[in-house]
């Protein structure tokens, strides 16, 4: 066996693994706060990547219209859900957040996009477009069923994924796009090359992992977010606004998803369904991390990335078959070790 090839495979695996790790983290985060198995996270990756790629070429991304659309529907859903408790202040506040804000963002993008700003500025614009979609989506699809079982939420998430992937196809077409790298830095490390792009992915993964681990275990606010998923009624009874908890989780999910997409856009061609495929691997990692531990999820993601890189070299035909079959023993082990006393109603 050639050790250089092995090193290349490892590097490839670790870079992909770090991306999977970021998405695995999102899965854990969203589940820990809302009990939603967040299938549509891949769409945030796609939207982020393709929005950035379009901005790089000086075009106005279609996601701004989607942003406005999401905002308007979320506004309507919000008003409908609080129809018994409406006042002028609330309507104005909601209109500011859900209609005026996305319109302002869209106007800014239309003004800025043709200027062909530097990559970091485009990254910020991308985040500004994608991030608000998270909480809007939560309001539209999940808040009305927030009390439902994990399985119902799962199926709703699948529905959202179908719609968002379809919208991705409508907005970006079936053609793939590639982004410009954020930095052109490249350091030779032995036979390998560490680019600024891959290094920033590693840093982002580690920082996100550490930050979220701290946030959900130390400050009371982080614990309050977790409490929302553990016992929703209990959380309300101590004064935690559970809909706000969900919205915060979705803000974080959208930011991390968009960042993941933006960072991977220069490395590979992104199609309208690429995000879903990356997300699926992240999802596997999160399951191995038993939808609870951030560090474990990242480690599992690296393992998935490496296993995939090796499989693609030695048995490229059966890469997916191998990766997905590998989860089954993990699931069995997790299921046995999670002391499940009784699956009460639902």
């Amino acid at each position: 066996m050639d050790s250089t090839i092995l090193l290349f495979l490892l590097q490839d695996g670790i870079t992909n693994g770090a991306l999977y790790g970021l998405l695995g983290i999102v899965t854990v985060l969203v589940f820990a706060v809302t009990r939603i198995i967040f299938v549509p996270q891949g769409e945030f990756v796609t939207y982020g990547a393709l929005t950035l790629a379009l901005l790089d070429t000086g075009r106005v991304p279609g996601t701004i219209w989607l942003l406005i659309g999401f905002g308007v529907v979320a506004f309507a859903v919000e008003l409908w859900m609080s129809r018994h408790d409406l006042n002028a202040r609330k309507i104005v506040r909601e209109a500011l957040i859900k209609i005026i804000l996305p319109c302002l963002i869209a106007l800014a993008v239309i003004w800025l996009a043709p200027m062909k700003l530097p990559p970091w500025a485009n990254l910020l614009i991308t985040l500004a477009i994608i991030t608000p979609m998270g909480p809007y989506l939560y309001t539209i699809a999940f808040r009305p069923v927030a009390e439902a079982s994990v399985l119902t939420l799962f199926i709703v998430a699948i529905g959202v994924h179908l719609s968002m992937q379809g919208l991705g196809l409508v907005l970006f077409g079936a053609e793939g796009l590639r982004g410009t790298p954020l930095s052109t830095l490249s350091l030779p490390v032995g036979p390998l090359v560490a680019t600024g792009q891959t290094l920033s992915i590693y840093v982002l993964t580690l920082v996100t992992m550490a930050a979220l681990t701290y946030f959900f275990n130390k400050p009371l606010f982080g614990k309050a977010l977790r409490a929302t998923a553990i016992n929703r009624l209990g959380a309300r009874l101590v004064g935690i606004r559970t809909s706000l908890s969900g919205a915060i989780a979705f803000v974080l999910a959208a930011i991390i998803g968009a960042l993941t997409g933006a960072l991977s856009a220069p490395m590979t061609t992104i199609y309208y369904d690429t995000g879903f495929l990356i997300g699926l691997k992240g999802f596997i990692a999160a399951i191995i991390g038993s939808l609870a531990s951030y560090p474990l999820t990242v480690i599992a993601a690296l393992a998935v990335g490496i296993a995939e890189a090796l499989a693609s070299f030695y048995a490229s035909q059966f890469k997916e078959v191998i990766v997905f079959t590998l989860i089954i023993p993990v699931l069995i082990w997790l299921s046995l070790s999670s002391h499940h006393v009784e699956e009460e109603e639902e």
Partner: protein
Amino acid sequence: MSDLLLSIRDLFVSYGKVEAVHGVSIDVPRGQIVTVIGANGAGKTTLLNAAMGILPARGAIEFEGRNILRQPVEDRVGGGMTLVPERRELFATMPVEDNLLLGGFLISSHERAQQLEEVFTRFPRLKERRRQLAGTLSGGERQMLAMGRALMAKPRLLMLDEPSLGLAPLIVADIFAIIRDLRSAGVSILLVEQNARAALRVADSAYVMELGEITLHGKAADLAADPKIVETYLGLATH
């Protein structure tokens, strides 16, 4: 300012097919313990849930003279009401101490630390178990934790749903002693109880609820002596 802390007028609550509340009116005067007794399924839990805002209701609910009928649960907690629900609704996979700290989610961190000490003084058992996961506590300890968590919010009105359900006699006695203490500490209490004997002993006034309606109300001591109440809810004191 009236001395009525909570005033419920002509409340209607629909909930599923079974439990429902039809036109119920209840007053909780400041500094008093008011109990609602009645059979399981009479609508007592529904009444409390509606008072707390968990279930939507028609009618009038005033707390400290303000209409709170449309207020969401979270705002009622901030306003000074808390509920200890029948199923306790603890954060089972979190330690006792985190459960309590979250109980004080809406108060300042300084007040929270102070309040935690107070709760630990009132429930020394919880202090011993502060690091234990709430889900591993025994029934009595869970009830104490649920009450402790509710007290962390510094409520002026504490609503208790079946605090003695499934508890051993000695712990029931403890719980009722604490209820009495809380009254002297200035907390008003709305108590829903299956254990009518203990409830009437501790309460100032009482309501009897049957099939979603209030059928009797008066001083707790008077009701405890009412022959109909004795026959249906109390039985003869044989032990």
